[in-house]
């Protein structure tokens, strides 16, 4: 199927963009913004707003149409597709198939000080009405918090015989998260532990595609909750059995 953006009529291809240009007059700014929009491929760009936001810098809001369509049948789905299971269904799946608690170890690793992501998945309270893994029957969840060095993370995982490792990365400046995520995979391989665990990355800028590329079993970005992560991990553990 071929699609185009929808403004107020099918196939009108309308999009909005906003950006800042280092330019000091409105008139020249509008011409420059239009030119930029054209180079971006927009047809009939309209600069609907220009504002001086700092000496030498102007902010623009532009509307225009894209002249092309997108074929979606050949595209990959960026999000992990798993059967959406409820907390109770996951708990039942664990009790039916495993005669022990599954051990999940999570942390925000490296220099990353943000716990928001890992807390949303693991804390008892969870996020947006989705209870965290700590509340799941059949799951022993350890949330090591933030700024956990990869070495320490791996040591702890070995100590508690982890089944699933959850790594959260929030800070992405200068791709520090990529280096850190790769380092963990290398460390697990060096310790001969990679095959023993389901390794999952999470964070606002993490996609499943990126995680797999880095050697993870899966990756979860925004709008994913504890049950998405748990269902994915438990299914993988079942496959491994």
């Amino acid at each position, binding site marked *: 199927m071929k699609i185009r953006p929808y403004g107020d009529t099918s196939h009108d291809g309308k999009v909005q963009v*906003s*950006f*800042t240009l280092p330019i000091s007059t409105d008139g020249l700014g509008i011409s420059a913004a239009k030119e930029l929009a054209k180079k971006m491929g927009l047809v009939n760009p309209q600069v609907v707003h220009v504002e001086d*936001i*700092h*000496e030498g*810098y102007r*902010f623009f809001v532009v509307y225009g149409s894209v002249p092309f369509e997108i074929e979606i049948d050949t595209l990959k789905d960026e999000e992990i597709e798993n059967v959406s299971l409820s907390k109770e269904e996951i708990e039942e799946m664990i009790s039916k198939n495993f005669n022990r608690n599954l051990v999940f170890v999570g942390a925000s690793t490296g*220099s*990353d*000080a943000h*716990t*928001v992501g890992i*807390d949303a998945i693991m*804390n*008892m*309270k969870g996020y*947006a009405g989705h209870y965290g893994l700590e509340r799941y029957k059949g799951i022993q969840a350890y949330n090591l*918090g*933030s*700024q956990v060095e990869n070495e320490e993370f791996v040591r702890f995982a070995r100590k508690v015989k982890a089944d699933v490792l959850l790594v959260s990365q*929030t*800070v*992405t*400046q*200068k791709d*520090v998260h990529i280096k850190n995520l790769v380092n963990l995979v290398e460390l697990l391989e060096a310790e001969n532990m990679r095959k023993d665990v389901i390794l999952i990355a999470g964070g*606002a800028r993490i996609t499943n595609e990126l995680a797999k590329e880095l050697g993870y079993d899966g990756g979860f970005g*925004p*709008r994913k909750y504890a049950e998405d992560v748990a269902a994915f991990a438990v299914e993988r553990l079942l496959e491994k059995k």
Partner: protein
Amino acid sequence: MENKLMLNQTMIEECRTFAKKITDEVEKVIKVRSTLTVERTVLRLLGVDGINQFDEPIPNQMVDEVVHNGDISKGISTYIASALYHTKLSLADFIDQYKKSEVNLTQIPLIDSKKVRVVLAPYINQSFEKISKNKVLRETLIHNYGKNLTDLYVIVATGNIYEDVIQAKAAAKAGADIIAVIRSTGQSLLDYVPFGATTEGFGGTFATQENFKIMRKALDEVGLEEKRYIKLVNYASGLCMPEIAAMAALERLDVLLNDSMYGIIFRDINMQRTFIDQHFSRMINAYAGIIINTGEDNYLTTSDAYSEAHTVLASQFINEEFAFRAHLKEELMGLGHAFEIDPEIKDSFLYEVAQAEMAREIFPNAPLKYMPPTKHISGNIFKAYQQNTLFNIATHLTGQSIHLLGMMTEAIHTPFLSDRYLAISNAKMIQKSMASIREEFIFKKDGIIQNRASEVLEKAHELLGQIASNSLFKALEDGIFAGVKRPYEGGKGLGGVFVKSKDYVNVVFDALEVKFNEN
């Protein structure tokens, strides 16, 4: 004092009594101990600075030398004074020779405490004079330009101090009154302060004395053009609380994040270490006229903002009492809280107003720091802008003092120039269009807002009572705040805590006490 919420004043007084009892016990631990960063702070305020050939700061090298080859329980003051006394060198010359390993601190006979004070007095006086001049200059500038009821606070975080300067100047010109330079992630866990101007950081820029100086100069320049005093913020939390406070005092920073418990709860720093460090750092802030900001907002990003609101209030009472004990005036206590209730909850805005107004009325003279929504902000920047508008209204309606602006691109990237501009425009529009709203609006008797505030106060009262009858150490071990449990002997930095010997001397501490008693 305003009492729009009809809060139970007796209960508020009892909360303060509980907080006194709670901090009494902690003070016993603080009094007899010092830490390595406290000792390094003494050196810094005597004028010791610089790094050796291995990039190690000289204050660290000196304190470590005494730890390994001397007796640090006597205090670094004794060692540095004895060395200067016997070598007859000036401090600057001594440092020069120390870098070349021509002199040391631990193979010299120690002099008595009276002589220590005499030898070090000129150096302390020099630093104190500089700090006191900074304070007078700040007060004069604020007096001349005029004081804002609410200061708009924005963050820069490029990792490169020179890039930060561009962004900070732009923000100030767009209307920001306070600029915070976020630190590189992980700096709070460094047991030393990096040296010099830095251009590489992750998620922020290293706090160094040189970076402080560069940003101060830039903000003074833009302040002169704008005819406003632009305040500069940095972060003292971590393993070097008092050292950062000393550097901030010397370079005329105006606000420091300085919580009595944040490091314990959110950075797993040992509780004894944190309590000792926060006390000394706050004494420095008190003398320098630096506003402290406490970190209660963090409880709400970790736990639920509705059900855990009382832990914020309880912590504010504890932070207030710790601050009093470090001689901080109410006018310097920027107690923190946040707008973090799930916007999907019915009447959530009313609950936010209740909690913000409650903080305002209970701490009427404190420059309260109000933090924007972050937890329930998604990639929908338009919704985020809407949430920030609600936050701005709550801020204005309840007369908050330090207004940290929310960014529509929170959790997406470090703010674009335009993100920050739009955030400032949003707040400015609310300030103007609702200029008199605080005087015009009263709250319905026994309505949702009044009842919510009473409920939070009652729960905080109950919690403080429990902590007072057990102990704050126990409360931290039990995970009362933000659901995080921390053992008394656990966490980072415990190795840097020591019990003072009978002949311990800290010339900076003593000089500060003299200053406080003069006033």
